[in-house]
């Protein structure tokens, strides 16, 4: 009985210390941000019914000057490096946009990029700084903005992007990552998935394997040129995300992506506008890279726990046997 009391005292002080230095201390050091579930409450819903066929023409006329759409056979007008040097960042290929980003986010983005991306502090027209993506608006015969028509056009464009985008079940974690994060963030770790080694990711695409040193150096040169343009655009080089799943964790990454201003007021990182499903996929990709052995950890953990519990039972039985004569 006395031993149980001692155990209770030891356990109490251990747990108290743990509580104070872990949950309590972290609650004092880091602001807690609740996720809104990627609802983007400040962005109005799409009110018009979109027509994908009309949207195709609108996209061809308004978007493909800067954006490629590989899926529709439209390559990007410029290579990533030239693009970044012209715009600051390479405009994304729109093939997967319709399933990675929330539809109302895309519609809002087309109409007002700086506001939707939450980078108005960086692109203030009053200070002569405009977002590289120009806002879309439809005009009536008198040259005034036709709000109804603008809403209809953006709904049509979104409908088109959704019609060409892969379905949720076809969108892989790596596709979600590349579309949502990959133009600014590199992942310099290769990773194993489904028995295959996947290459590292640079801001200009997967790092190929090279036969000749010259080709490798030429590629690295391009990456560096791209990063220089990106640094100028963002103010600093966005971090490599290889170990972010361990250094930041799922909750932080999700709430950060949902609204970067939550944690870093005035950051140059835009709100990306991913859907909740895509955010899960991005997390899964970061786990595939930075915590690739998590499934093995669970399996091995189970077996070790079973083994060690059996060990403890035998140890208790042995003690009882040895001590029978001692009492």
């Amino acid at each position: 009985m006395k031993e149980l009391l001692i155990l209770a005292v030891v356990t109490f002080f251990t747990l108290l210390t743990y509580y104070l230095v872990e949950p309590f201390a972290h609650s004092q050091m880091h602001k807690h941000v609740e996720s809104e579930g990627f609802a983007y409450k400040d962005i109005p819903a799409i009110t018009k019914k979109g027509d994908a066929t009309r949207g195709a023409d609108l996209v061809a006329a308004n978007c493909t000057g800067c954006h490629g759409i590989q899926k529709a056979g439209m390559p990007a007008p410029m290579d990533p490096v030239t693009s970044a040097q012209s715009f600051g960042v390479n405009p994304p290929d729109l093939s997967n946009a319709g399933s990675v980003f929330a539809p109302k986010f895309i519609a809002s983005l087309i109409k007002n990029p700086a506001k939707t991306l939450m980078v108005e502090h960086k692109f203030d027209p009053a200070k002569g700084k405009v977002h590289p993506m120009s806002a879309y608006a439809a005009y009536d015969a008198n040259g005034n903005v036709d709000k109804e028509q603008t809403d209809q056009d953006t709904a049509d464009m979104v409908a088109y992007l959704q019609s060409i985008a892969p379905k949720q079940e076809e969108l892989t974690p790596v596709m979600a990552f590349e579309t949502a994060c990959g133009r600014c963030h590199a992942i310099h770790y290769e990773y194993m998935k489904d028995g295959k080694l996947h290459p590292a990711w640079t801001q200009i695409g997967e790092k190929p394997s090279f036969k000749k040193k010259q080709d490798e150096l030429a590629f690295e040169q391009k990456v560096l040129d791209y990063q220089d343009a990106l640094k100028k655009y963002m103010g600093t080089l966005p971090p490599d995300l290889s170990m972010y799943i361990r250094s930041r964790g799922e909750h932080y990454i999700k709430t950060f992506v949902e609204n970067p201003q939550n944690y870093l007021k005035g950051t140059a990182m835009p709100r990306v506008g991913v859907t909740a499903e895509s955010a899960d996929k991005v997390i899964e990709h970061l786990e595939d890279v930075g915590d690739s052995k998590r499934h093995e950890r669970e399996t091995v953990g189970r077996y070790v726990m079973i083994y060690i519990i059996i060990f403890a039972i035998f140890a208790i039985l042995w003690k009882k046997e040895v001590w029978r004569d001692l009492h």
Partner: protein
Amino acid sequence: MAHFTKATSLHDWLNQRLAIDTLRRVLATEYWIPKNINFLWAMGMILAITFGLLLVSGIFLLMYYQPNVNLAFDSVNYTIMQEVGYGWLWRHIHGVAASVVFLIIYIHMFTGIYYGSYKNGREMIWISGMLLFVAFSAEAFSGYMLPWGQMSYWAGMVITNLFSGGSLHADGLVEWIRGDYVPGQAFLNRFFMLHVLLIPLAILALIGLHFGSLRIPHVNNQDGEEIDFDAEAKKYLAGDKAGSKVIRFANDFLAKDMMVVGIFLILFFYLVFYHYDFAMDPVNFDPANGLKTPAHIYPEWYFLWSYEILRPFSTDVGLIAFAFAQVIFFLLPFLDRSPNAVPASRRGLFKVWFWALLIDMIILTAMGKVPPEGMFSTIGLYAALTFIGLWIVLPIITKFERKV
């Protein structure tokens, strides 16, 4: 030269050459331990097992770790964690054991303080134990440098800065320790050497000393009873096992040790597989960057109480208080003036002193981690002053303690 006869068995052959029967008797079957002990007396065995886990996992990690500022981070987080088969397992065992070993060390220390196991001939047990504490602290700190993450770098920066001695401005000493103006390649190399060779050697030697120091005064018991070990051992050997106050180290004591070890390992492996973040700080999964100071720099939990004794004061006073905290535990056997080697519960004011010290150190630990602002600084300051005060009054209250 000794006389050797033709061996009748392998046992006999070995016995003639190594005296294994005598060794077994001296180290195990007739190494007498008091019967009147509780599970807190198994902490030594848990520490030995945890040290074994650290040693074995460390050897596996050493096969892939690269002590180079450009490679270290990725050799740990990519090569070991993702590429090498079960590398993640060894790293998690190593990281969690490094943290848990300090929890057990603190329990072991407070057990010793509570039961008065540092006096009346047991002073060297305490002192060798404190030397082990210092060696383990150095081992933990040097190991923390090796992944070369943000916390490695900045903890290395802050802790080595302490050696400048505040107003003494011994910057030359700091540079000498670092081998550079800031932590860099030379720094990483020397801490690697310390972590994998010099300090482990010192720990092994100190463990030998610690075990040896137990031999003559024997292990204490939970009532502080003075036992005539020879007489009780005779009683045991004569067959009165139940009546004897002593038991064999093996298998009697060992069986109880292993029971406690078994239960401990359930907790340990639960932490390794399901709850490892407390021992592997997320901040250290960002690679070291000398141009980007983390928002909060704090040591691992087991150093927080002494860190908090440093923090609330001005630089020079803080350093003196910090130095005081580092050495004062060594002096415990001499600051405790009472002849009573019995549990604190029977020692009047010392009982209050014991619980006050424990709670004060937990408060210091908590305040050492949170940002030093507002109320936290005030609490930290008072807790640090209380710590110093407790050690100053110790000789006085124990001097007037009644003999039990």
